[in-house]
């Protein structure tokens, strides 16, 4: 092994630094999945009857469905009865009303993750909803947001306080019949964030949810619903980590975004679930359904994701461009190392006139990993003047990994212009040598080049996330050039 390769391998083997477990007493739903468990979750949340019916109907449908097999990911069959569908830190009395009542162990946990929840310590301008296993433990800056009419709270709370909004929009983008994992989520989702930005309001701060899986043998099924009313704007960030365990844990989330006339939603994710160890043991199965509906004219939904974690990633944040002149964007960095498998991409469905979409995907494969971009651009007959530009680049670091590009491009309108470009290459020896000859050491040179490769996507992230993501990209990638 060359000296370069060695340095890189060292870096690649850097330990997952969020792998600790918080020792906290939890209460669980009975193990396994049944109507009783669905009822248990609904009861825990004090949900209205219609919500329970919705869950039960999803559960019954789920029983008839089979797991999707088309993605390029391989894993042993999942025993859906061998997991807990609800786990919550045991409350001292009831759900905490203020930070003072939150278990200090939890606050410590988030502090350790770099997400201090006490408002005075927080990054200014970011409001956080912290979801720990199945429940939201605290939401910060709620009062400040309420002043401008922004609702930002756990979805369980929204179901109680704003049932009319939840009922109107829940399942309107990702129906409970959508796919195996989304349907499962509809039956058992336990918490997640709810955001409503009223007409004409530009949300005064970044909103953020931080997801943490802690308990063993537990699946996380959160549900996020964001509605930007006419002329509203919101930027939303999502982060995720989990302890290091030998078992595979399932995370099957659903995110629904609705943008009405002239509204804009920017949704950023830094996904750093535990990826498993270097031998492929453990790690999260990240099977997520994310979809945005540009329901109004001139609306815009922009997805940015940095996917570095999880043993398996299966997610396709998509945009339905229904309103005339609406815009969908997807910016993605997906990194797969060791035995990780990533099958991710997007769908851009052009329904309205003069709708535009842009897809920039950067895939990086290292170790024995398989990384697939899978995307669909579909222009319907009535989408006159639609435009799409897609750029998919893959970088291979090492000779045992794979990079795959599977775009589906369907046009049914002659005035639509669709352009797609893709490249696959390895990191350039010439570039590396050039940097090294200028005195930059190998690991830094790789970080530099790889960050350059991802630049277009990193630029899309809000400042608070960009720095963290850049470091993460550096660490995950540098270690693997052979």
């Amino acid at each position, binding site marked *: 092994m060359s000296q370069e390769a060695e340095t890189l391998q060292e870096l690649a083997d850097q330990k997952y630094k969020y792998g600790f477990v918080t020792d906290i007493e939890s209460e669980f739903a009975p193990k396994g999945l049944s109507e009783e468990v669905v009822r248990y979750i609904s009861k825990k949340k004090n949900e209205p009857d219609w919500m329970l019916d919705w869950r039960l109907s999803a559960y019954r449908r789920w029983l008839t469905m089979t797991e999707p097999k088309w993605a390029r990911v391989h894993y042993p069959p999942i025993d859906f009865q061998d997991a807990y569908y609800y786990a919550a830190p045991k409350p001292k009395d009831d759900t905490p009303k203020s930070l003072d009542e939150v278990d200090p162990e939890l606050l410590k946990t988030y502090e350790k993750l770099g997400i201090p929840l006490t408002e005075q310590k927080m990054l200014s301008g970011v409001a956080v909803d912290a979801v720990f296993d199945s429940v939201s433990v605290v939401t910060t800056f709620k009062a400040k947001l309420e002043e401008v009419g922004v609702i930002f709270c756990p979805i369980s709370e929204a179901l109680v306080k704003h049932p009319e909004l939840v009922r109107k929009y829940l399942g309107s983008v990702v129906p409970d019949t959508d796919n195996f994992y989304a349907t499962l989520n509809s039956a058992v989702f336990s918490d997640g964030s709810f955001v409503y930005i009223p007409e004409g309001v530009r949300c005064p701060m970044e909103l953020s949810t931080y997801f943490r899986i802690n308990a063993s043998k537990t699946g996380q099924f959160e549900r996020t619903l964001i509605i930007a009313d006419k002329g509203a704007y919101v930027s939303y960030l999502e982060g995720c980590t989990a302890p290091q365990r030998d078992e595979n844990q399932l995370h099957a989330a659903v995110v629904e975004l609705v943008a009405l006339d002239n509204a804009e939603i920017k949704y950023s994710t830094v996904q750093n679930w535990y990826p498993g160890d270097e031998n492929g043991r453990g790690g999260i199965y990240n099977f997520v359904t994310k979809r945005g509906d540009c329901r109004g004219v001139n609306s815009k939904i922009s997805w940015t994701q940095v996917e570095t974690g999880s043993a398996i990633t299966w997610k396709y944040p998509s945009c339905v461009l229904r309103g005339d002149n609406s815009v969908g964007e997807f910016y993605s960095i997906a990194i797969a190392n060791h035995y990780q498998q990533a099958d991710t991409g997007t769908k851009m469905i052009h329904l309205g006139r003069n709708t535009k979409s842009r897809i920039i995907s950067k895939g990086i494969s290292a170790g024995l990993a398989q990384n697939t971009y899978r995307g669909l651009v579909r222009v319907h007959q009535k989408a006159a003047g639609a435009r799409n530009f897609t750029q998919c680049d893959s970088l291979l*670091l090492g000779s045992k990994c794979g*990079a*795959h590009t599977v775009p589906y*491009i369907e046009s049914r309108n002659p005035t639509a*212009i*669709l352009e*797609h470009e*893709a490249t696959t290459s*390895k990191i350039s020896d010439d570039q590396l040598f050039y940097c090294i000859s200028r005195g930059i050491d190998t690991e830094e040179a790789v970080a530099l080049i790889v960050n350059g490769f991802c630049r277009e996507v990193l630029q899309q992230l809000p400042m608070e996330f960009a720095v963290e993501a850049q470091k993460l990209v550096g660490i995950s990638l540098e270690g693997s050039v052979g």
Partner: protein
Amino acid sequence: MSEITSLNRLLDRMAGFERGGVPWLDALREEARTLFAGSGLPTRRVEAWKYSDLARALAKAAEGSGPARPAPEIPGAHVALFENGILNEGQSTLAAIGAIPLRQVLADPATPFAKRIGHVNPQKNHALLNLNTALMEDGLVLHVPAGVSLPAPLHLRYDWAGKEAADPDGRHLRIVLLLEEGAEATVVEAHSGSPGFATLVNEVHLAPKAKLTHLRFERLGAAARQSAVTLGELFAASSYKGFYFSEGGLFSRHEALLELRDQEAHAEIDGIYLVGDGRHCDNTTILAHAGVNTSSQQSFRGVLAGDSRGVYQGCVRVLTDAQETDARQMSRTLLLSDRAEMATKPELEILADNVKCSHGSTAGELDTAALFFLRTRGIPEADARALLIEAFLGEGIATIASEPLQNLAAGLVSDWLAFHASEIAHAE
């Protein structure tokens, strides 16, 4: 009213075929029949057939075929004439180049070609190949010995006409092209008329340094249902150069499944397709790079008019040890009508790291700025549109090395444009 294709009849026919008394062939047919019985005809549920529903096309009774357009002539070529899928030996000049009718080879228990037929870049789960293997009757085997270069092209002429052509259970043809070390040949397919259901499989074995130029001119009728596959195995420093012209049909598909097995093998495919109202045209390629330093280049250009559907699925697969692969792929489509539909799936599957692979794809209408520019120079809109379409396709045609064949392709394009003038010109 004509009958429709029946799976049961096909299977019955297959069972009869595999008791022909030629052991190597019976075994080959039996395996193919068993696999086909399991899969049936491909439907859209099969990923590779997502955009082309053969089962559905065959379930419809074929309508009138319309006026047949004459098959192109290839001056100076040796001809193999297939009338409604049956070789007309009297009208063919096979002996001059050592081509042997397939029937003769299939009847020979000791044929040296047994090790090739059904074994070139095999695809076990390909329903259509299995169907063809189980039922193939006509075709030919062309064996070009080492170092020999065929002086004139082989013209494979497929004419379909009359009641015979419409057989719903199909005619299943197999062409086996074996080029030994350093051998060179040009093979030109020309299709005309409307087969009720035809499958055609080309098996191409290129020994080291062999060179094959393979041109396909598909000028099928509106009722034609044809699915063709070219299987290829390319050994060291061999070269396959394909040019595919197609006007589509009720159902028309061609798959090029090539394995670049050894170092420095090279494949180049240029395709142009012009698809008129009510037609379907599918170009599918899977180029598997297995050897080091292999290269491939694909460029497809399509024009879709009326209520038509075009499909391009191009997969470049680079296997683990195929270092220094250079693979490029391009698909461009012009949609001339708001009822036309294009589905493109350019796919990269890369398992080696030292590679250069790229694909690009565009779909859209004619460049309005170029159209305006031409009109300001006094060229009427309809002519300007035709000129731009010809220019768009011309870059593909320019890749044909032989001048007469290049002219032939250009002629077919002009012909199509003239025939479809009203579909091309935008009504003011």
